[in-house]
């Protein structure tokens, strides 16, 4: 899943540095993630994983690292499977 997330970030996040130079826990905002770019990252994630990110999960914490995005997607998939 992190491979897909990294591809999405490379395509949509418009970071100041290549995503390959960041670890899974590195701060994406510190790497130049803008609020406008988070919108595109969100849409790409929803499309890729077939989930809808609810408003209450949309926080800076969600977009803060590859790790936090991955755990959110996992959580949403689990909820979908249970529903």
């Amino acid at each position: 899943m992190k491979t897909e997330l990294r591809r999405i970030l490379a395509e949509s996040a418009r970071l100041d540095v290549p995503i390959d130079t960041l670890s899974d826990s590195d701060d994406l905002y510190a790497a130049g993630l803008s609020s406008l770019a988070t919108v595109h990252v969100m849409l790409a994630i929803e499309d890729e994983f077939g989930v809808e990110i609810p408003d209450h999960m949309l926080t800076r914490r969600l977009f803060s690292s590859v790790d936090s995005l991955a755990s959110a997607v996992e959580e949403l998939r689990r909820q979908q499977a249970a529903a």
Partner: protein
Amino acid sequence: MNAATQELEASHLAKADRNAAGRSETELLEAAHRVSAIAAKYASAVDKEARFPAEAVAAMRTERLFSAMVPVLHGGDGLPLSGVARLCEALAQGCASAAIIYAMHQSQVVCIVEHGANVQWQRDFLARMVREQLLLASATSEETIGGNMRTSACAVDLVDGAFNIEKLAPTISYGKYADCILVTARRHPDAPPSDQVLIVAPGETCTLEPRGTWDTLGMRGTCSEGHRLIASGAAEQILPVPFSKIADESMLPVSHTLWSSVWIGIASDAVNRAHQFFRNQARGKPGALPPSASRLAQAVTLVRMMQARLRESLAAVEAAQRERVARQASLADDIDAPLTASIGLASDLNMLKLAISQSAVQVVQETLMICGMAGYKNDTPYSVGRHLRDLHSAPLMISNDRIELNTANLLLAQRAATGDL
């Protein structure tokens, strides 16, 4: 402690409280009207000569209007944003350049008030700003960067707690006349363009070298020439919060709402002139309405709609300010604040700016048709040419083209675009 001393103490406290309280909105609005009357006297000369509205700005200083929005705790009047918007509206009816200068000053003050109060140097500067009624200006644009204020080329170079900075700014409004300039820059020499900080640079810490001229269609009194700015000082002058946060929470909300109130004030003054002209026309021919009747109705309808639209955004910004204070009080982390709220506010403010900047021009266009040649001429009580020229700056101050793209982008994040009544 006996009853008498207790009473004495209580009366002392009451007195201290009274002294600490700011002026009421009514008092401040009366002061703004006095300033506006002075500004109106010189508005035509300011426009013709493209000179700084020195008389109006001096009157603002005498009336201590520069600290109206500063909290009482720091010596100001603690006027809420909606009140400051009314001051701007009143000032704009006298002189558009003077009013937009006042609005821009406030959008700088709020950055220090909301993001600097934890730093001793910033608190001291705020006290000095109130005491001496200093005028604050902004240097966000940069030559190699263009109009996007969210990126910088110049960088802070901190050595032993002291910084040096040099910036080529294509415009610094009233830079030459400001007592302090707030400057954006990259956090350090290796920081990416979007990793910005905001530096508070009082006059004694910076020098300005003018570059270029300010001979424009309107807003000629803002004297927004380009400058080479060189500043140096102590690390405490750099606000401790990233500029992206300062811009989103403070600078942008305050500038978009206060600019809008200035534009509404300019349009209102033109409508008042047209209304007067219309009544005089009607007096000349009792019983028959002048042919421009429906235009007057349209123009007034539009101004009322603009005022209502602005009130909506002012309430939203004030609510966001309250929420932020509550979050800080409960020590909640910003990182868990819902992005939909901040995205919603950002797109609302964008749409406010689009709506008011466009309709204000449209309103004055109508008043020109109502006043006819008397409006077209520059030297009658019904002249609205200056109003029209001044308002043509509104769609350009942060280009509406850029704001439309940005808004559409923000709308992508929202499940329901229009919201509810």
